[in-house]
């Protein structure tokens, strides 16, 4: 059974593993260049975009044909009319494909994580500790769980749509929607975030390497009725005018003090990296599991 699962899927698996390896080689090569370079070279946006897209594309490329291609080519009518049950047939495929794509992603996640820690160029897209989305999403178990989620999504869509290409086309926006929803709505609140308040106008030390969100300027101090001070959004115009006016203090910090403004927001400190990674990957592994279960249900009840 394992042999058959491997033989049927080997082209999509080999193509996917090659893609992951190529990205790995590309990053290692770039890393060596970086290591020997004296100027502040760093990973480009292209590298980062590649790492973001990789779990989605590779997961779908292996998942979508897993059932979809056999439905498309009609070979299910061969495979499902034998002694082996549809459950065993699907199980062996899942086992082989997961074993084939899991380790390369784990390796790549480890490589990128090690890299971003070693790199630690202050103005890099990678902050070096990695709790902000740019680092967080391409390192650790979360990176592997994204690939498995896309893989399971491909299986279910392939089983429902019966065409691997449609499953792929439908899978990309679904993947992006789910990932964004978790990142924007869930992840900031997985652990209650901390609040910072700064009246000095300098970036607080606690925010170094932290993931900052909802940051905004506010009028400092309680208002007349004791209500929360109104939020002003980005750097207020009054501060800009103050800095520009001759005779006033020249720095933003001094102006902010003068105008009784404060900079405040929420953040997740960098030492929560592993806890957040654990929660995030648990969510995506659970989703992957649920999608596989639905895929198995679809396979079981498919009339062909």
């Amino acid at each position, binding site marked *: *059974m394992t*042999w*058959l699962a491997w*033989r*049927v899927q080997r*082209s999509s698996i080999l193509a996917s593993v090659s893609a992951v390896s190529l990205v790995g080689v590309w990053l290692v090569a770039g890393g060596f260049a970086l290591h020997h370079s004296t100027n502040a070279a760093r990973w480009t946006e292209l590298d980062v975009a590649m790492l973001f897209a990789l779990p989605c594309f590779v997961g779908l490329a292996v998942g979508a044909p897993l059932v979809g291609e056999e439905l498309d*080519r*009609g*070979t*299910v*009518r*061969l*495979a*499902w*009319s*034998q*002694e*082996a*049950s*549809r*459950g065993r*047939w699907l199980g062996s495929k899942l086992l082989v494909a997961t074993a084939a794509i899991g380790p390369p992603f784990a390796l790549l996640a480890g490589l990128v994580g090690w890299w971003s820690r070693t790199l630690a160029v202050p103005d890099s897209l990678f902050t070096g500790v990695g709790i902000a989305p740019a680092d967080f999403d391409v390192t650790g178990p979360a990176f592997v769980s994204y690939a498995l989620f896309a893989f399971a999504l491909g299986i279910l869509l392939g089983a429902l749509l019966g065409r691997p290409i449609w499953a792929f086309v439908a899978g990309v926006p679904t993947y992006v929607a789910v990932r964004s929803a978790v990142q924007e709505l869930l992840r900031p609140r997985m652990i209650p975030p901390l609040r910072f308040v700064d009246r000095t106008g300098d970036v607080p030390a606690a925010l170094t390497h932290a993931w900052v969100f909802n940051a905004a300027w506010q009028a400092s101090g309680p208002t007349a009725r004791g209500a929360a001070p109104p939020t002003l959004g980005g750097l207020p115009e009054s501060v800009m005018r103050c800095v520009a006016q001759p005779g006033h203090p020249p720095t933003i910090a001094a102006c902010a003090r003068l105008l009784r403004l404060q900079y405040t927001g929420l953040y997740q400190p960098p030492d929560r990296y592993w806890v957040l990674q654990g929660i995030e990957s648990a969510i995506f592994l659970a989703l992957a599991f649920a999608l596989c279960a639905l895929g198995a249900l679809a396979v079981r*009840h498919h*009339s*062909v």
Partner: protein
Amino acid sequence: MSDNQAAVATYGLGKRYRRSRALSECTFSLPPGRICGLVGPNGAGKSTLLRILAGLTVPDAGSFELLGETPGPGRSGWRRVAYLDQDRPLYRRFSVAETLRAAAALNATFDFGWARRTLEDLGFDLHQTVGTLSGGQQTQLALIWCLGRRPALLLLDEPTSALDPLARESLVRLLLATVAENGTTVIVSSHAVSELGQFCDFLVLLTRSQVRLTGDVDELLASHRLLVGAAESSPPGTVLSSATAGRQATVLVRSEGELFAPGWDAEPVDLERMVVAYLRLYACAEDESAALDATTSARVRS
């Protein structure tokens, strides 16, 4: 399984697709060890029936028994049932040898040595890719996959369609030799009624999703007669078809028991003639009922 137990028994099987009815009220019983011809025009529901019996399609109505058991969930009820699909799905990128390995992987019972020997005897190159085999060779390979499972029940959907006469003959020979050796029950669907007449001893006739005629071929032939007589007299029995040439009429009649027909010459009928008469009868009946429907709806409208 005792001898008098049916190899296949269906009770009111029905299947609907989105728009059309593929099968309705399908009931028949096939004794073990028989070769059953499943005949009917295109779209009559032959493939749907075979796919239901193979466990690929779930019927909307009715139930069935295979080899004396009602198949439950999973494949345990189909362990000894092999099925050859109309499209002969095979893994096109596999070699012939890999195809046999796949058959062995999917089946606990698969006679790998026999299948390999048979393929070699038929002149197959085991390293050749399945996609590059001719249509006839692909059918042979798919059939050997089925036969290698040593099934007790073999379901074949149009096994000889799109084959040249030579390939057809060798396929039928291979099938009959193996089936006779193992006492396999076979259901084989086909358009080629004359060909089925050579080896079928049981018949199920389907038109427009319904079973119209079923039974032992010899018994069916015995209860049908071709009568030749004067055109103006009425023949005995149930008239299935009639043709008049001048003052002489040739009619096909069905009658249980002895046929007493004064003034008519009775001749035995062959399978093809009988099947064609039935197909024509139900095709006409449907045209008439369709015409009736049309007039009724026209009347309702006016």
